[in-house]
């Protein structure tokens, strides 16, 4: 067998994978190893595959991903804290032929925006909600969020979350799966190649549902926050598998076809 050089392999016809052009060339503002970057890329790849990038409007939240409009090379609107589903409702109702999605973290969606989220889901607005859950307020310094696990340390629960004084973690995804307006509710992760592929399928299905005007699709992505959890990215991923997944099990929660 003849030897082959790297230059012969690195030809445009052999290209298998490169970063999608729907992400801008700006360096992502996220910490090393943060799942937000992968989640951004999955959404943009799905839009590119479906060919709907010119008729999609994204709603950015407040939180780590507040600058999502800097990285996603599509039409974006940034909403007030927690109000992304309300803004998305208005955008979708005024532009029914556009694809509308919100991209939110757990502090935005499950704390400040609980009412907006639940009512948008209950009304069955024809939008997609991408929910990145890392169990902590990452951007503001690792404070306790509604999704913080029992016993989990954060900067406002330095001895671990005590459920008697600080309440129980909120499984918002299971909560909204009960509502008749939602059509597809799923929970995925992005820490391994297999999970990234599954998440991409889920996001694709969510946008296909919107195309068929079926109702609201909700994709939760369980992610890490290595800075907030005070771990290295690899430790954070292992910790997530060990502690987050038993409480937030992956898989489809509701599929209405």
């Amino acid at each position, binding site marked *: 067998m003849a030897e*082959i050089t790297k230059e012969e*392999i690195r030809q445009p016809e*052999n290209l298998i*994978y490169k970063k999608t052009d729907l992400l801008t060339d700006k360096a992502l503002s996220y910490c*090393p190893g*943060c799942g937000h*970057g*992968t989640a951004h890329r999955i959404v943009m790849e799905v839009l590119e595959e479906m060919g709907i990038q010119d008729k999609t409007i994204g709603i950015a939240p407040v939180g780590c991903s507040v600058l999502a409009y800097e990285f996603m090379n599509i039409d974006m609107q940034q909403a007030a804290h927690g109000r992304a589903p309300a803004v998305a409702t208005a955008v979708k109702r005024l532009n029914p032929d556009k694809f509308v999605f919100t991209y939110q973290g757990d502090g935005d969606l499950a704390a400040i925006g609980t009412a907006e989220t639940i009512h948008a889901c209950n009304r069955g607005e024809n939008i997609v909600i991408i929910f990145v859950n890392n169990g902590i307020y990452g951007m503001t310094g690792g404070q306790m969020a509604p999704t913080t696990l029992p016993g989990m340390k954060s900067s406002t629960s330095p001895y671990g979350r005590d459920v008697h004084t600080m309440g129980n973690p909120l499984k918002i995804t299971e909560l909204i799966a009960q509502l008749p307006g939602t059509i597809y509710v799923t929970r995925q992760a992005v820490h391994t*190649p297999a999970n990234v*592929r599954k998440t991409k399928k889920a996001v694709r299905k969510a946008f296909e549902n919107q195309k068929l005007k079926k109702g609201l699709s909700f994709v939760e992505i369980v992610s890490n926050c290595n800075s907030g959890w005070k771990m290295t990215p690899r430790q954070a991923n292992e910790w997530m598998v060990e502690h987050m997944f038993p409480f937030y099990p992956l898989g489809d929660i509701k599929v209405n076809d």
Partner: protein
Amino acid sequence: MAKVKGDIVIDIEKCKGCEVCIPACPNDVIALSKNVNGKGYNYAETINDECIGCANCAIVCPDGVITVYRKKVE
């Protein structure tokens, strides 16, 4: 027998050295460099020629810095 050879190109200036790609690689092709890039991160680099172009590293890379090529060798 046809064999598949692959290669990856890492944009070292954008790499943040998170190491998420390292456990994703089935052939242990990637390791962190001892050198640092302009931001001060130890960047990922290839350490052998065993790459099969599976693109696992590229799809888990949070910053999308890896480009993957694959060629069938007769």
